[in-house]
């Protein structure tokens, strides 16, 4: 059997449940077994957060907003449906790691193309399975999301490394995830709407949702307001993205330069940066919102929508003039959306594009189109 390739052999060895552990910055230890990619020194690090979705792990893992973070899935069976070529939210995952209770041995779904461990391995993402993820989640809930490490290194090494592990506070990850060059998606050219999307870590589903309403021109985060205006947009979209909104370079200036000149719609990071540009602040939530079941009320209609959520920071618009709050999270009362009264701009914190998650907030893309249309007249 000398023909067995090196990768196959290494995978075989790995299936022998190599012990691994998590050590959080506060010294708390969780045991598990390694899967996916293996960092050379047996240590991976990042900010530990938990996500409560029961389906859609592939979308979550490939969402660029998780750059710098280690994702803990609260649902215990992960990998059941494998991965496929169409459900990715970006070209590759940017997260620092994945924590699961139980990794599916054999995926089963008619669309499955690759199993999750191979997918992660291929993209260099390490994982740890067999973890008491509920204990980890409760710990993060009670003590806040925090930095930590995990891997196959010995406990002493991991403990030492945990002391210097960093969370996302004050860190700009946008540069890592934004597109190198501009590109266009022109699915609905008939409407004549030209939408320029500033890529702060944009999800594929957002591009797809926008393209239902016009041609979409995705530009790097460093694009200036004048460069954008030169593209003659009917509307500008501010995307989701990773890290601390307060630390993001260049984009805030760009947004300030666009305010009032063109209709603007922001989602997630885009929501936070729009708020900042208008004079608002952002603050970090204890453990963020990461899941697909948060109720949000649209104050303009009174309707409740179950939303897809993925954010660590929240917007504070206290004292900012010309602002109308449009959306509120019913779980904790945090701000989920606002619009400007005198200029054409609005944003939401949650994810109307879903991917993964419920579809009922997708009307917001329609609102953007309406805003563009009423502005054009």
């Amino acid at each position, binding site marked *: 059997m000398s023909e067995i390739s090196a990768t196959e052999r290494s995978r075989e060895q790995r299936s022998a449940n190599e012990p691994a552990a998590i050590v959080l910055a506060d010294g708390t230890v969780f045991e598990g077994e390694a899967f996916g990619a293996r960092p050379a020194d047996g240590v991976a690090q990042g900010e530990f957060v938990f996500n409560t979705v029961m389906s859609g792990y592939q979308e979550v893992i490939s969402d660029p907003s998780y750059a710098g973070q280690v994702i803990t899935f609260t649902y215990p069976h992960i990998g059941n449906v494998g991965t496929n070529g169409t459900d990715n939210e970006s070209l590759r995952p940017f997260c620092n790691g994945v924590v699961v209770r139980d990794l599916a041995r054999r995926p089963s*779904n008619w669309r499955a193309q690759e199993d999750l461990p191979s997918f992660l391995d291929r993209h260099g993402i390490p994982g740890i399975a067999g973890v008491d993820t*509920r204990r980890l989640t409760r710990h993060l*809930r009670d003590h806040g999301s925090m930095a930590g490490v995990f891997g196959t290194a010995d406990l002493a090494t991991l403990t030492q490394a945990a002391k210097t592990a960093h969370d996302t506070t004050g860190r700009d990850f946008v540069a890592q995830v934004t597109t190198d060059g501009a590109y266009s998606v022109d699915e609905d050219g008939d409407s004549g709407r030209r939408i320029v999307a500033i890529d702060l870590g944009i999800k594929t589903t957002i591009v797809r949702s926008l393209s239902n309403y016009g041609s979409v021109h995705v530009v790097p985060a460093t694009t200036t307001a004048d460069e954008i205006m030169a593209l003659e947009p009917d509307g500008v979209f501010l995307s989701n993205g990773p890290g601390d909104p307060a630390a993001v370079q260049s984009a805030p200036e760009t947004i300030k330069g666009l305010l009032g000149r063109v209709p603007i719609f922001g989602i997630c990071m885009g929501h936070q940066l729009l708020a900042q540009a208008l004079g608002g602040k952002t603050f970090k939530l204890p453990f963020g919102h990461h*899941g*697909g079941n948060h*109720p949000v009320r649209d104050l303009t209609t009174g309707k409740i929508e*179950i939303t897809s959520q993925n954010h660590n920071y929240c917007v504070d618009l206290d004292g900012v003039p010309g602002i109308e709050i449009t959306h509120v999270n*019913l779980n904790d009362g945090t701000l989920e959306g606002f619009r400007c009264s005198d200029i054409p701009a609005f944003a939401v914190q949650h994810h109307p594009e879903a991917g993964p998650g419920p579809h009922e907030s997708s009307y917001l893309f329609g609102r953007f189109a309406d805003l563009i249309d009423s502005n054009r007249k």
Partner: protein
Amino acid sequence: MPRRDDIESILLIGSGPIVIGQACEFDYSGTQACRVLREEGYRVILANSNPATIMTDPDFADATYVEPLVPEVLERIIAKERPDAVLPTLGGQTALNLAMDLSEMGILEKYNVELIGADAEAIRTAEDREVFKKAMIEIGLGVPASGVARSLDEGHEVLREIGLPVVIRPAYILGGKGTGIASTMEQFDHIVSRGIDASPIGEVLIEKSIAGWKEFELEVMRDRADNCVIICSIENVDAMGVHTGDSITVAPAQTLTDVEYQVMRDAAFRVMRRVGVETGGSNVQFAVHPETGEQVVIEMNPRVSRSSALASKATGFPIAKIAAKLAVGYTLDEIPNDITKKTPASFEPTIDYVVTKVPRWAFEKFPGAEPVLGTQMQSVGEVMALGRTFPESLQKAMRSMEQGRAGLNCDAGERLYDDVETSDLLARVSIATPERIFEIESLIRRGVSLTEINVATGIDIWFLDQMLAICEEREALAGRQSGDGIPELTTGEWKRAKQFGFSDAQLAYLWNSDEAEIRSARIGAGVETTYKTVDTCGAEFEAFTPYHFGTWEEENEVAPSDGKKVIILGSGPNRIGQGIEFDYCCVHASFSLSAAGFETVMINCNPETVSTDYDTSDRLYFEPLTNEDVLNVIDAERRSAEAGGGELVGVIVSLGGQTPLKLAGLLPPELVLGTPAESIDLAEDRDRWAALCTSLCIPQPEGATATSLDAALETTRRIGFPALIRPSYVLGGRAMEIVYGEDDLRRAWQAITLGGSLGREGGLSSSRPVLIDRFLEDATEVDVDAIRDASGEVIIGGIMQHVEEAGVHSGDSACITPPVGLTQSAIATISDYASRIAEGLGVIGLINVQFAVHHSGGDDEKVYVIEANPRASRTVPFIAKAMAVPLVKIASRVMCGATLAELREEGLLSESGSISHVAVKEAVLPWNRFPDVDTVLGPEMRSTGEVMGIDMTEGMAFAKSQLAAGDRMPLEGTVFMSLADRDKPVGLRAASKFAELGFEIVATSGTAEFLGSNGIEVAEVVAKLTTPSADGDDIAADGPGVDGVELIAAGRVDLVVNSPRGRGPRADGAHIRRAAAANRVPLMTTAAAAFAAAKGIEELRKNELDVRSLQEYQSAMRGA
């Protein structure tokens, strides 16, 4: 939108007796609704004929009508109570159908009553399959091709369009009754004809079969502001083709990507909106093609269902409670989530564990019925198990079933299929049966590829692979043993084994050790259960409800407490002989002890029940009721008490039927509250029990125990025939029989010892012998429920006289209280004996004693004791309602140390006034589910549920009980009588009464002759069908004239009285009884019941059928 103020009183319709397809999940939903609506300040009027339910406790409604659930009775209730609204969506199909009747008959309009929850139009859209499919097509959702037929010809026309195979479903039928899959024309004709008959509107839906597709279900809630949420997704392990009630199901869905799940979710909301369910919960079922992902909508229930009970327990989201609040106008965001307290109910629960539901069947009770699962539901109960992974929850579910299996494998049962060839076994698993999951395990363990099994069964590879993981772990664990005894395992290895769901009993089997040794080795290695919390949110928010399940992780969430804790062991899955009555008992104990300041801890694994509601007890452990699982909870609660300064007072084992009672002997004796395990054993141990009766000078039928046929024959030679034989330690008269001779005994012996199910449960041994008693023919059976306290005081809760004579299982017999047919002296003797037996056994708490009153002519009567059970009996809730005594509340306090005198002082026990009403309990039998089974009653219990008729006279109470059980007594017409000789004296009284009431009487020759010679005119002598030959076989009779079956089939009979007695074969009677059932003619199988029926008919003709609430009966008693 706040609560509606324009309505003040609401009529809630319950679901009536427990039947297959409609079990205690509707007691759970109705109880929740009653509590919520009263909390909201509405006047609640409840109608439900089932006395065993918790909701019919007078405390739960302002006016409780235990009356037949038929439109004219409901009209009387409406006319009397004048409710503003009727809430029909929490009482199953029964309530929904009744609401439709009330609407169509114009009764709702006449009394200006509004239907809330779902209106008539919505119900019609969801329930009428043709309308539903049209609606689905209209909103662009996929549905299987289909057509509707009201005759066989129309059926053939539809078939030409669709082609075989097809599924045929009767319209407006609960639990899929009459449904079937046809792959041949013969099957097609048969099922279509049967279905048209079964449907109340004579209509069937014929649909392209999608058997083999994957099946999913979503639980949806909607409020009147049109907010919709999904509470739970459920995936069936069994593919389409097996009724969802008969499928092993898992929550949440395991094999859908988010893209597919969201498409399904959107579709569910569109279905809800299109059907027009304005508020409340519904479920929508989908089928998904395993290779293309094509989704089609199968059906929706516009009401709370069995699945919603499951979803509520699976997620912690109380669907019924919320549905009731939505029905009175609240919106989801206005209702707080009880569990997190600070978040609203307008969200979608997310769970961090896996839930597995496994149905439990009762085919062993119905010889002749083939144990094959299909589109018609046949299970009588279910278990649910929670684990962090599917393998863990599946294994827990398997041991929760109490059918002799310790898990998926790793027990004596795993060898059952060893002798079956792989090819045969593969062929077998292509047919769904109760055994299939174990057959699949056997195939996996012998290395058959998952693909092959997937092809044979349609079960998704993911589930099969998870089962393979269990098998691989089993092999690995077996391989760890080198030599004898328990291998040296590391803490991690122990934990891993437990995480796969292996119980200590399974490991003991694997390593040829015993459970106690495994337990101590495991605990020695530091591996103990950790309890997680069901919190609706995957730990995102703090949970304030201690609803736990056990698993094997790093963190235990059981909080310290300073309470005086009492653990109550529930009754596990519903089965025939052990059902809702015991849940009633456990729930009452919890309420009573909680009121007395105890911290109550419930352990149970039945998702349909009130006991597994998170707010019934102070703490809930959703766990299997096995020795290990119970001991683990005891340990956890002990630690919680130690850490918090509390105290574990003990464990109540005597309220959950046989399930917890069997555990009594295995628990630390000092923890068993009330009657000690020793006394329980004394009552079960034949010889010691006989000695006790002798010492108390209480006569009992002669008898003995036997573990061999020879010993049994020796006994019958001494005591004579007929004899009653039964295995010990079983409930519901499992395998109990009356034998009339030695050959009969030999045959019955075989049935008991080789009959499979009993053998599987451990077979016969000196500790589990067969009991043999002389059977007292011609005796009246009497049941007594009593309570004795530690000071020795005994109160008699109630005495029930059976309508059917001794020999019919008490659970299947109608019974009357007060015992109007007993003499005062017999009642005095019975009370005296019951008290002395309670004393002799040292009972503390409830005891049920059965007596037989034997009349040997004239006034000469003798009372024999048949058996005593020092535990709550099936009749406790009936007695509690009929006599207005809170028996269980009193008994549970007594078990925890109170004396009856103290409880009298406290006011819990009050002297009952004189009773001027009569209550009749009638059993409800599932014959319609098993059309090939003889409907005769015998010593083995087969009823699934019961109803109560209550009125001022025996006749009226009996008539109501029959009406409630589904038999409408004719007020005129023809009675067909066929009586066994010994029944003729009583039968004569019945016949005279029928004649006096103007009924025409027809009879078989012997009966006709007897009646004629006693001056009763017999209009026609009915021919016999068969004559018995010497060896017991039947020979077709060729006598002249119309036979009984023809007569019934011709619609010429309005009431059948057929009493099978004596030694001979019963084939003739069986045909007549089957014909009566098939043609829905009321049938009395005993002369006593016929006489009671005659009296009832007399009353019905004299008086209007009047309704009174339990509260009215109670105040009459107090006033008297």
